[in-house]
């Protein structure tokens, strides 16, 4: 098993994807948060509460949470690359107990996701605090709370990367897998929300669980407004984290079980 994890790290570190992923984390974390903080949520269209309010800070961090698509895509690409470049056959020749290969990939990408989340959250924290200081705005949320929220976002990034790995292992075809992952995260969930009744499920869907993790209620509030009658309540943050982890574990378990018996041709 150690051999397999070592092999997966070698596989990843030998490609350019690794560096690109770290750059993406810094650009999205530090860059995007920096620019948004500089502009100020009060100047957004439509305007959001300013950085000096709790809701304003939460909104920025919530938007950051929505970039979980990036690690999800990275995980999907990493796993499906084995099928696209036909190295899966070689890999399964060296490790015929296929669940071990997937388990090693999950372990490797959990570390990768954690590093990604750390860089993202770290650069976002630096950007947020320094821009606030430069603009002379005191954040509407105590610094430890900001850091705790950023930490949760970092963890969410890791979980999304693993969801990507699981979906990739399941679908195998790179383009199809990317369509499903991107399609669901950016379109599918929104479409689901339009079906009466289904939107009540929002809190336990990946998007809703991520929002719960960061207490980002923008989408839920908008939906409640449309519905008029029922108000949608997000799960408590800890439960949201749990639900999200369950998605990753399920995707991973499927990813581990399904490739076992499939023919590699």
């Amino acid at each position, binding site marked *: 098993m150690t*051999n397999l994890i070592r092999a997966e790290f070698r596989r990843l570190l*030998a490609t350019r994807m690794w560096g690109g992923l770290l750059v993406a984390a810094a650009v999205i974390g530090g860059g995007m948060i920096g620019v948004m903080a500089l502009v100020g949520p009060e100047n957004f269209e439509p305007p959001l509460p300013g950085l000096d309010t709790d809701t304003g800070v939460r909104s920025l961090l919530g938007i950051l949470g929505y970039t979980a698509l990036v690690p999800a895509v990275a995980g999907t690409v990493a796993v499906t690359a084995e099928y696209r470049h036909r190295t899966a056959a*070689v890999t399964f*020749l060296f*490790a015929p107990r296929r669940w071990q290969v997937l388990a090693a990939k999950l372990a490797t990408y959990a570390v990768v996701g954690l590093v990604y989340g750390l860089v993202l959250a770290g650069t976002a924290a630096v950007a947020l605090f320094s821009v606030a200081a430069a603009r002379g705005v005191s954040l509407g949320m105590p610094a430890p709370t900001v850091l705790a929220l950023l930490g949760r976002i970092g963890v969410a990034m890791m979980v999304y990367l693993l969801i990507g790995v699981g979906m990739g292992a399941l679908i195998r075809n790179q383009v199809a897998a990317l369509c499903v992952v991107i399609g669901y995260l950016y379109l599918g969930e929104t479409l689901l929300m339009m079906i009466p009744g289904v939107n009540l499920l929002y809190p336990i869907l990946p998007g809703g669980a991520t929002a719960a993790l960061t207490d980002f209620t923008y989408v839920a509030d908008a939906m409640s407004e449309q519905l008029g009658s029922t108000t949608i309540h997000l799960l408590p943050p800890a439960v949201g984290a749990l639900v999200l982890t369950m998605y990753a574990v399920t995707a991973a378990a499927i990813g581990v079980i399904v490739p076992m018996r499939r023919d590699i041709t």
Partner: protein
Amino acid sequence: MSIDGLTIEVSQLTKRYGEITAVRDLSFTVEPGVITGFLGPNGAGKTTTMRMLTGLVSPTRGTATIGGRPYRRLARPSATVGAMFDANAFHPGHTARDHLRVYAAMGGHPDSRVTELLHQLGLAAAADRRTRGFSTGMRQRLNLATALLGDPGVVLLDEPGNGLDPEGMSWLRGLLRGLADKGRTVLISSHVLSEVQQLVDDVVVIRRGELVAAGPWSRLAGPPTVLVTSPDADTLAVTLATSPVEAGTPPRVDIVRPGQLRVHGLNAAGVADLAAAHRLRVHELVTENTSLEQLFLDLTTDPLTTSRAGTP
């Protein structure tokens, strides 16, 4: 780590894909210490069989074992069996060295083995180039290097001749002969008989997923026949048919057409000597396709034919 060859045993192996039966009730054994050719026309089921042998494809029925164990139950698969399939199984962004290092780690083989193989397979100069720019020959060599990482006792190569230049092929022959001489098990598939003719000791021939012939080449090939063109054909035919040969029975002679004979049971030199002794003219002497060659030719040229190669 054992580097001795192990016996490959395929028993009543069957693979169905929906309506299509790719391999049907196939049984044969491959012994260590010799090179075995796995022959058959394209689409005969060679690759499917080899994939079942290595656990990549699950058989519908039957078993395929290496040293008595199915591939998936081998304790150290890549140190036991080196298998090569697709010539194109690399991440384009990886260098040759990257690729080998990934699989060296996976199989628990030392990194020194990577450098060793890069040199041994003539890839040292290209070691740090990304595989995206590799020629087919280089890919084939890198594939072979991957299969040999664990210094395995059993080597399975699917169509290794594809993309290899004559020099590469001759090098491969040397390598495989060396492995067989060391007592290892070598199985190579090919749809081109001439490619492996000089190399293999044993053969397994399949067609449409079924066994056609298996055994030592020398036994299956049968005695050669000689086609003689001579203006004195009639006299020569009588002379040949009445000549006592060392082995006992005189050669059998068929008249193909006026001026041409087919001789069974005597080689070209024997025919020439006999003709010379009787002052008969010979314009042409051709040693003909052995029966296995004829059989294989029938299989490859007409995949729908049901007749075995008859005696010409």
